[in-house]
């Protein structure tokens, strides 16, 4: 047995807690968390906009989350989110005078709000747990309902854990002003998603989690608010994720480093990497920087500008989110602890960059955005 810095009492006490009659497998504390945040996109450049409002998007979000043990063997969570959105959004892209692409922006501001509720209930046993969840998200033109199930199993005294989950959701869209703008009346899509993960403790200070995900979407997948946006009626998405955590005694620092590879049937490949350092882990003030790098290739039906000559049954989209681009995001996070109450503050700045895109052949899409998010939250544990 490796020599430990802990006192004999600490070692024996935690060993005692692993004994069958004494170990509690479900979470032992109740957490209530609220947060409010503002997301603000930078205005589109005037030379990038052919027509319409330059003012871009803003979203104010309020979040509520509660998780609690229920009895000795159960636990549950409730979350509620409310978003208030305003601002203009690109309707399409046209070729401009010098061969550059330019945006056609929606005229009037979009003013919409979204409310989402998610509930989950989990039953715990010593080495495994099963959970079910339901969720609903509603905007005045969009409603989504989902159900999910999760299974987790521990092995080797919890050195290794296996997780399996599956979910099904149905989304319905009834675009506003459908008649006026000759948009689709209504459409729906169904998504089935599966996920498997392995969590492995590597050393007393390091842990890794590897996951594979598969999501299949069927139905109306196009954006009805764009002037010409036709997407295939099926989409298969795959993800591989690695999440690594490491604790350093120097300044009680925690490193969280994550990588995701995404590839789908739209021929999009995307790499996402993010890292976060937290200094003062476990002490009254925890703070640290975050960095995120993202790069994606274009969808195989992506076009730099809308081609109305093409039949409207043929897939095409000039949505910047399907173009080849990348992004860098820098942020700062701080947590202040006062006993059971914590205050959490976050700032993030995101900048899209054409040259970080994968296999990019074309010019930068004028719709590439930059944004800032500021959020403030409070948590209470008991």
């Amino acid at each position, binding site marked *: *047995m490796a020599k430990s810095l802990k006192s004999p009492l600490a070692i024996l006490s*935690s*060993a005692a*807690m692993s004994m069958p009659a004494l170990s509690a497998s479900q979470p032992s504390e109740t957490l209530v968390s609220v*947060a409010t*945040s503002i997301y603000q996109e930078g205005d589109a450049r005037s030379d990038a906009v052919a027509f319409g409002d330059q003012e871009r998007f803003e979203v104010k*979000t309020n*979040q509520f989350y509660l*998780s609690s043990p229920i009895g000795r063997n159960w636990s549950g969570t409730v979350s509620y989110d409310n978003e208030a959105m305003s601002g203009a959004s690109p309707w399409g892209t046209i070729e401009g005078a010098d061969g550059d692409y330019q945006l056609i922006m929606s005229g009037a501001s979009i003013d*919409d709000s*979204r409310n989402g509720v*998610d509930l989950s209930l989990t039953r715990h046993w010593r080495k495994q747990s099963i959970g079910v969840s339901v969720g*609903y*998200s509603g905007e005045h*033109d*969009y409603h*989504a309902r989902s159900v999910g199930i*999760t299974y987790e199993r521990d092995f080797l005294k*919890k*050195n290794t854990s296996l997780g399996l989950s599956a*979910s099904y*959701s149905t989304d319905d869209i009834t675009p506003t002003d459908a008649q006026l703008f000759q948009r689709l009346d209504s459409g729906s899509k169904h*998504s089935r998603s599966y*996920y498997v993960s*392995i969590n*492995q*403790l590597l050393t*007393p*200070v390091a*842990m*890794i*989690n*590897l*996951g594979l*995900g598969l*999501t299949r979407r069927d139905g109306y997948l196009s954006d009805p608010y764009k002037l010409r946006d036709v997407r295939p009626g099926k989409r298969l*998405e795959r*993800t*591989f*994720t690695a999440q690594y*955590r490491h*604790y350093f005694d120097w300044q009680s620092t925690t490193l*969280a480093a994550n990588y995701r590879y*995404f*590839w789908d049937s*739209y021929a999009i490949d*995307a790499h996402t990497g993010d890292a976060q350092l937290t200094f003062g*882990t*476990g002490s009254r003030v925890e703070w640290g920087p975050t960095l995120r790098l*993202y790069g*994606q290739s274009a969808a195989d039906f992506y076009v730099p500008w809308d081609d109305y000559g093409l039949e409207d049954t043929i897939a095409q989209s000039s949505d910047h*989110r*399907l173009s080849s681009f990348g992004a860098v995001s820098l942020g700062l996070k701080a947590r202040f602890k006062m006993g059971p109450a914590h205050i*959490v503050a*976050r700032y*993030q700045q*995101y900048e899209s960059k054409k040259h970080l895109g994968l296999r990019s052949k074309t010019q930068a899409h004028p719709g590439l955005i930059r*944004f800032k998010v500021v*959020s403030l*939250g409070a948590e209470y544990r008991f």
Partner: protein
Amino acid sequence: MYANSHVKGLGKLIAFTVLLLAGCQNVEPWERDRLAEPAMQLSADITGSKLDQQVFFSKEAASGGTSAAGGGCGCN
């Protein structure tokens, strides 16, 4: 051919994973105090993660990666 190269890549990944996990040290329960720090958990800051996921989902083509997909929204 597109699909094949991905399957091969996945095969290599799974082999790598099995080897990685086979070489792991066994961490005893009383050695886990640092691993148990909230900042070390995948579920640290659930609220912040949900917000990030929502933001990136609506601005990028890639999504998901940490669980089975939940419900959607009109944002993408």
